[in-house]
């Protein structure tokens, strides 16, 4: 499956000149910085630096851009952990446990865990990519609306575990998120916009709404507190603890493995990607964990699950892009544009004719992952100082930066207005005991769910069962979902009966 001639050629390509390597570190640094800025998406960071690559050779330009891609994916988790703001939508699940860890004074560990899980996820994804490119190109395009609907339903299962104390309030919050997510023009061209506000034709801007729900609502709630971490002694920035967190991540290889596989597979599907994979991985990990009830209160496993999945989605998206010439999302669209600038067209013939370049890209990404470990360590060390800033400075600064970010995403006042409206909603939800995380998950998955349900209906002419019988992949996904749920229910049952039996034995 791996052709060693091409591997050799790739190594020669990479080692023959320094050019390719010079751009690695600046790319990583740029990616980390932009990824950590709330509101600047990975795509935006890559688009800003795309023109620069016109004056580079092909390999250096691709290495530079993929370095930004890799690092921005991790950069998003830094504000997620420290301030409950997902820098990108792929870091939503990172906030669930990363931020509670920070509040408890375990910010060093949380950042270390996130970094290690990201690096291993990236490495693992590119290793899988070497073997997966060929099969991926055969399967990905065959995925239709029913398959995507199945993925969305799988994601919705997460709602069940985000409900907090009251099931009904959790589901209500989730339903609210789904409803908000379906505003605007639907896929069949019908407009759900009773106020006829032009800003809402595309629905509620998701990222500002998410920032408002998750971050601003938290920060408003902290107004009477002096520091993010109450205990002064815990406010230390400790390299040792960050590295300890990285070690901690290594003790959970199954979670990383599961996260990476989910990340790669979901990443290959055009239009789905890392913003869904981190939720799926978190949900699966929580359901299979023996300490599931501590998830959401600062369990490092939650961070590992989210980060290994969102960073490995990059590898999946790259597989689709290289194998089919199809961009799965904005970031790979920019990479394809960079290919085009160099007069290279992605797609099946590109892989067939340029295996050496494909392997060179993969190897360069291994190097990126390893270097990210070092540069990321320095970055989180500096970023960690946020916990030592008094909240009376931090809260206004973060709100201002978030507002600018929300403006940057939308390019008009709709972003900041959405942020403010959803901050108030988020604050009220927290105040009255409704889980905001469930609303965010509903918001992220609502449109995916609805669009694909509509399309399944259109394509099948209303005959869902008959159509499903012709879609083996969808049936496999549904079956896997059922098996996964059954297994975790069985495990829970066993644990319960073991606990119930314990007193008997002691007697």
């Amino acid at each position, binding site marked *: 499956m791996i052709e060693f001639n091409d591997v050799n050629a790739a190594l020669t390509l990479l080692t023959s000149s320094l050019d390719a390597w010079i751009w690695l570190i600046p790319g990583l640094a740029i990616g980390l910085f932009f990824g950590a800025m709330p509101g600047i998406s990975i795509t935006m960071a890559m688009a800003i630096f795309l023109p620069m690559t016109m004056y580079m050779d092909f390999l250096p330009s691709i290495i530079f851009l993929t370095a930004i891609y890799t690092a921005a994916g991790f950069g998003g988790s830094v504000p997620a952990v420290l301030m409950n703001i997902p820098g990108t939508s792929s870091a939503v699940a990172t906030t669930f446990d990363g931020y509670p860890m920070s509040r408890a004074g375990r910010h060093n560990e949380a950042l270390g865990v996130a970094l290690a899980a990201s690096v291993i996820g990236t490495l693992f994804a590119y290793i899988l990519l070497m073997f997966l490119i060929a099969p991926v190109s055969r399967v990905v395009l065959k995925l239709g609306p029913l398959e995507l609907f199945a993925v969305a339903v799988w994601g919705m299962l997460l709602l069940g575990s985000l409900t907090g104390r009251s099931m009904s309030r959790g589901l209500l919050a989730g339903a609210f998120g789904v409803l908000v997510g379906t505003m605007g023009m639907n896929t069949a061209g019908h407009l759900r916009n009773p106020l006829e506000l032009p800003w809402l034709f595309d629905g509620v801007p998701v990222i500002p709404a998410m920032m408002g729900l998750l971050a601003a609502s938290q920060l408003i709630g902290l107004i009477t507190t002096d520091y993010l971490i109450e205990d002064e002694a815990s406010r230390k920035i400790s390299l040792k603890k960050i590295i300890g967190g990285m070690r901690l991540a290594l003790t959970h290889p199954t979670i990383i493995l599961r996260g990476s596989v989910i990340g790669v597979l979901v990443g290959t599907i055009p239009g789905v990607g890392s913003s869904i994979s981190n939720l799926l991985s978190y949900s699966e990990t929580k359901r299979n964990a023996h300490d599931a009830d501590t998830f959401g209160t600062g369990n490092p496993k939650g961070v590992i699950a989210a980060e290994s999945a969102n960073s490995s989605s990059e590898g999946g998206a790259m597989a689709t892009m290289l194998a089919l010439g199809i961009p799965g999302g904005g970031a790979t669209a920019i990479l394809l*544009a960079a290919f085009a600038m160099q007069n290279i067209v992605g797609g099946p013939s590109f892989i067939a004719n340029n295996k050496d370049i494909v392997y060179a890209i993969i190897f360069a990404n291994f190097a990126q992952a390893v270097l990210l470990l070092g540069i990321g360590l320095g970055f989180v060390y500096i970023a960690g100082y946020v916990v030592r800033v008094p909240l009376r400075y931090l809260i206004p600064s973060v709100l201002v930066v978030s507002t600018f970010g929300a403006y940057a995403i939308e390019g008009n006042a709709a972003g900041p207005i959405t942020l403010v409206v959803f901050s108030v909603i988020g604050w009220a939800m927290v105040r009255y005991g409704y889980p905001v995380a469930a609303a965010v998950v509903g918001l992220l998955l609502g449109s995916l769910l609805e669009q694909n349900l509509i399309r399944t209906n259109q394509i099948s002419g209303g005959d869902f069962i008959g159509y499903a019988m012709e879609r083996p992949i969808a049936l496999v996904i549904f079956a896997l979902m059922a098996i996964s749920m059954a297994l975790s229910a069985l495990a829970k049952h066993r644990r319960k009966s073991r606990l119930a039996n314990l007193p008997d034995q002691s007697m």
Partner: protein
Amino acid sequence: MNNNFTRRDMLRIASVGAAAATVASPAILRAQSGYPDRPINVVIPFDTGGYNDRLARASAPFLQEALGQPLNMINRGGAGALLGHTFFMQQPDDGYTISCSSFGPYVPLNILTQDAPFTVDDFHMINLPSQDYTLMATAADSDIQDAADVIARLQENPGSLSIGIQPASADLVNLMLLLDAHGIERDAVRLVTYDGGGPARNAAAGGVVDIALVGGQGFLPLREQIRPVLVFDEVDNDDWGGDLITDVSGADAEFVYGSQRGWGVHSSFVEKHPDRYEILLNAIETASKSPEMIESLTNQQLATDWRGPEVSNRALRNTAAVMEQHIDLLAGT
């Protein structure tokens, strides 16, 4: 309690930030007397990475050279270009804000379906190099052979094929005109609606839908995975080898063009500042005809043909007129 950050520290940090911002702000490349004497904003009513964004950014180095001023890209995506077009119209008509967009069919669509606060006549086209067309395609391994096959199957049973399409699009108008021309009932076909050209093309290439009607230029990178069935144009500019609509529905077949993309300004700018308009027009013409720009853009599968204002404005207005005739098709499906 011991504060780690004093007020003075915060002020110091803020001032360093402000200084950095000053240093980083772009210096004016070449000071000139007269227009343009400052950078020109380019409003792109789509997000980064799409055709218009790529076209604007790829053309920028050559236009900057011809104009002697840097171009500043502003992406204002959303609501089918309505937000971007509205924003552009709100900017001063002094030639310091121009736009790179799919004016056709989006300006007419904004007006007909979204109650836009502008008219087609508010826009003046300088050059629309890219004129896309609808392509009907099926998966490379599909058993559908050609346009006659598709029409025959639909005539026998209009619901027999699933058809991938974008709602309220030029492609939908073309499909309905084709159905009318061959006596197929409009309401009986099985439409599967997609939110963008990309997903609809992927659905065709993967055989998720039986056929899809989408902008043809976007199909170019997928050439190996699809079988072109019908080109909605009088000529087969991209050498698909499929049937032409004029072969299938007769020489006077009615159809509309897809995206007409390129450079536009406010119509009021042309009246108010004819001298500036002349300079801008010449710069775009010079750049578009320069061998360097043609080579660079061709490599990126972007169009550079110089059609000029007369042809470009006529093309946009034709599209608007045909769209208006078929306004009933543009509501939700």
